[in-house]
């Protein structure tokens, strides 16, 4: 028996997202009195793998393969499934990001396992919870399968550090050459900005800001806080901001520690994407804006007056730290 955790590395580096998966998998292994084993694919160094021991894992399977530095759902699935079989894995843990979404369903089929994605609780006996209907409800699922595949919801499990180093083993599995007919030919990652799904602090603007030229103060606020920027659907539909900043029922669902909504009325579809946030601050000049009902802190006022004042107050606060 074992819990197998897929830890994603990007060009050899482990990110916060995979550390959340590690924390989850290690906890789960403890409650099941079994071993937590990590698998990573690509070009991570054995030293970096060994350092994952800080998060409580004792073994890391390092699949070093130049052909698999970028995601290939077919080959990744074969490799992880073989590792699971070799280590009598009963639970596989992945992160609910673009990679987890792409390989978890394939793994479930290959291992005849039940799958629950975006889980928000630790697996307890055979039950687990997740948010459904865009966060308007929480569902409890029961697994009927011996093997279980779980992707964990971002920002739902705080990273816990322990002590130690992990033993690193190399692991390989053969996969057909035809898997490599699907290839990533280019990767563009914005540098210097925080990916919205992983951000702990988010500053978001709505149509009430009147135009893309008025985003300067929003970006300033985000910079001061070290926050990511987001927007409402109306704003992305008007092409004021890129699509990938759209949060809401048909955009991204995020759960940051702090969500500051500026000049967003708070339509039910928008709330669906952000109502998992720990603290919500709403700045809106309309006292009847529905967003105030979902907010922890509300400021009734014109964003063009309030936000610069907030920026000044935050600069003073940051300077005093």
């Amino acid at each position, binding site marked *: 028996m074992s819990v197998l955790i897929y830890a994603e590395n990007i060009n050899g580096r482990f990110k916060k997202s995979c550390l959340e998966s590690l924390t989850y998998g290690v906890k789960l292994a403890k409650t099941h009195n079994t071993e937590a084993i990590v698998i990573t694919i690509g070009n991570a160094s054995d030293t970096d793998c060994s350092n994952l021991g800080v998060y409580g894992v004792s073994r890391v399977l390092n699949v070093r393969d130049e052909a698999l530095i970028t995601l290939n*759902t*077919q080959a990744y699935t074969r490799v992880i499934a073989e590792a699971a079989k070799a280590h009598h894995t009963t639970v596989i843990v992945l992160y609910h*990001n*673009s*990679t987890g*979404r*792409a390989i*978890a*369903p*394939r793994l*479930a*089929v290959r291992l005849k396992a039940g*799958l629950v*994605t*975006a889980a928000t609780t630790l697996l307890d006996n055979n039950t687990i919870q997740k948010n*459904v*209907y*865009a966060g*308007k*409800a*929480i*569902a*409890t*699922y*029961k697994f*009927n*399968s011996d093997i279980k595949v779980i992707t964990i919801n971002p920002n739902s499990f705080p990273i816990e550090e322990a002590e130690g180093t992990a033993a690193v083993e190399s692991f390989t599995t053969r996969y057909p050459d035809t898997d490599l*007919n*699907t*290839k*990533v*030919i*280019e*990767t563009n990652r914005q540098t210097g900005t925080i990916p*919205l*799904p992983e951000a702990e602090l988010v500053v978001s603007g709505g149509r009430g800001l009147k135009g893309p030229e008025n985003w300067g103060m929003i970006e300033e606020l985000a910079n001061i806080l070290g926050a990511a920027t987001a927007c409402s659907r109306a704003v*992305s539909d008007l092409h004021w901001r890129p699509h*990938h900043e*759209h949060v809401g029922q*048909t*955009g991204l*669902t995020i759960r940051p520690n*702090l969500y500051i909504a500026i000049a967003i009325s708070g339509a*039910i*579809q928008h709330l669906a994407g952000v*109502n998992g946030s720990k*603290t919500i601050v709403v700045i809106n000049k309309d006292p009847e804006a529905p967003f105030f*009902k*979902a907010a*922890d*802190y*509300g*400021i009734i*006022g*014109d964003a063009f*007056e309030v936000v610069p*004042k*907030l920026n000044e107050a*935050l600069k003073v*606060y940051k300077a005093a730290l």
Partner: protein
Amino acid sequence: MNFLICIAKVPDTTSKISFIDNNTKFNEDKIQFIINPYDEWYALVRALEIKEANSGTVTVIHVGRADSEQVIRKALAIGADQAVRIDADVTDSMTVATYISDYAKTRSFDIIMTGKESIDHHSSAIGGMIAEMMDLPFISLATKLDMNGSVATIEREIEGGKEIIKTQTPFVLSAHKGMAEQRIASMRGIMAARTKVIETLSPQVISPLVEAISFQLPAEKSACKMIEPDDMQALVNALHNDVKVI
């Protein structure tokens, strides 16, 4: 180019959600059902655009009972050529993916598309499962799809950026915002949809590997604390001292 587009039936985005039978079942009373927006706005519309620019057919497939007809007719009105309904209850993703791949294996589709996820259970699972069942490539969260003969160039969203992928038909793809713009059915489309054929298939019952056994509503938010617009210091203090998020 022959497309198979998987469409789910979901409650309208403005629906008030409640449950019946001791919180074990979704309350469908007064609920308006729609095609899952990701399936309709992005997957179906992009398939239609590519078909119109080249040639081929767009087939929509749906797992559900007879009361799904209105949702299927809508897809036909937007422009799908034909529809298949697998007459079964929706249980877990694996069951739905099995029904759809069993059907797809009997035909020859070049591209099978789903939406990124359904807006009810958000599983984001059907596309990847179908791909594995048919041993096909799977590209998730695609925001752009261009075809050149049988070669596809696909943009896909990743954390903080995008990836460009090359693959060949046949493949499975899940569609995300950016793929296409929502299309409104024309009167002509609506009329034409009335006479298009919906093939109905009865599959064998599969026992689900995962079941939703109960539901609950999230805890009510406590009342919003109002802060004066002139006193941003008070907000900073509250965020730092009270909720400790900065």
